[in-house]
């Protein structure tokens, strides 16, 4: 049972106020943890710490390389959906054929957007394309910061399916959300 993330006594403070302290957590294959807490209590900061983007923390933290989806979708407005996804696959060391890209988009029912420039997408479509890159990156650990923003019900169901399949095939997911996730296996409250 490979462990993707292990955290002991993690505490983070922003300036002089402390966001959270003494956080313990382990994430292994098949886990899907919901990170919960009121606004501004450090949910995003926790994910950024695990992803390695934020180093100002005390405590023990070891994590595998991960695929991270932040508040902004990380899509270049002037590039088409295909160009964005091909760049992502190449960046993470792999490569993506048109078939892989089509398959990834299909899981989120966004295949028809493949030729469109990112700036021409609606917020929901933009988010779906951003999520579509996850299977292409070849990382088992996914860190998602509010994945459901701007998604309609159909979109939310598709994302749940994506996460369920990923966990089933030995991956692990940590998602910061405001509402209960149907696919989550555990909850982690940062502000309790």
């Amino acid at each position: 049972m490979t462990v993707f993330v292990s955290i002991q006594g993690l505490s983070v403070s922003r300036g002089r106020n402390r966001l959270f302290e003494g956080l313990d957590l382990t994430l292994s294959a098949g886990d899907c943890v919901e990170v919960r807490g009121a606004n501004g209590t450090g949910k995003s900061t926790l994910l950024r710490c695990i992803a390695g983007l934020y180093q100002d923390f005390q405590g023990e933290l070891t994590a595998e390389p991960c695929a991270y989806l932040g508040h902004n979708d990380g899509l270049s407005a002037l590039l088409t959906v295909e160009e964005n996804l091909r760049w992502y696959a190449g960046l993470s060391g792999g490569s993506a054929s048109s078939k892989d890209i089509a398959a990834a988009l299909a899981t989120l029912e966004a295949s028809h957007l493949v030729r469109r420039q990112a700036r021409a997408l609606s917020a929901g479509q933009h988010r779906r394309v951003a999520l579509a890159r996850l299977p292409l990156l070849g990382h088992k650990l996914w860190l998602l910061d509010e994945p459901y923003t701007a998604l309609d019900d159909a979109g939310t169901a598709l994302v749940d399916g994506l996460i369920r399949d990923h966990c089933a095939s030995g991956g692990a997911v940590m998602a910061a959300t405001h509402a209960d996730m149907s696919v989550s296996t555990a909850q982690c409250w940062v502000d309790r």
Partner: protein
Amino acid sequence: MGLVRLQFQREWRLLARARSEALNPLVFLIMTVTLFALALDGQAQALSRYAAGIFWVLVLLSSLLSLDGMFRRDFEDGSLEQILLLAEVPFLPIIGKMLAQWAATGLPVVLMSPLLGTVLQLPPEALGPLAGALLVGTPTVSMLGAVGAALVVGVRRGGALLGLLVLPLYIPVLIFGTAAVNGLAAGTGGVAQIYWLAAMSVLAVTLAPFAVHAALKISLENG
């Protein structure tokens, strides 16, 4: 090396799609050269004596325009942090980005320098040395500028601050660049300065990626 090419192609495609934005620094250079020529054209003889220095200063100033936007668009749409996250060796995409920035600003300046040099009344025998000195000197400008750009990418209205941080570091390039052109044109020897420019470019190309990487990690922390 694949990552360098991958990032270079991506930057080049982005520049091609936002052609006007990519050409702004060059248009700025052409305009400012014309302004100087208009202001001083009366004393053609005097202008040619200072043309090399004027041209180098304008190249340095126009580079600030392109550098300011170098990381800003990727920072705002979130793809910049993905480079640091996903790339096995983050220095390679950074080098790809810097080469693309040089190719979009440094190279065109070198190619246009004969034309703009004559506008500034530079004697014909000085045009070759000008192009050569620019070719060897502009990589340092792009590389050091990239460090400054990475430091101010998270700062609102970082453009003015970028100038303050980077222009003092450009002074050796300005001194040796101007001396090289004047020396070679007058035949009194400017080759040593060309070697200096080349040495600085090699030093910048090897060290700047580390500084840019450190600066980007810092700027992304409060992202």
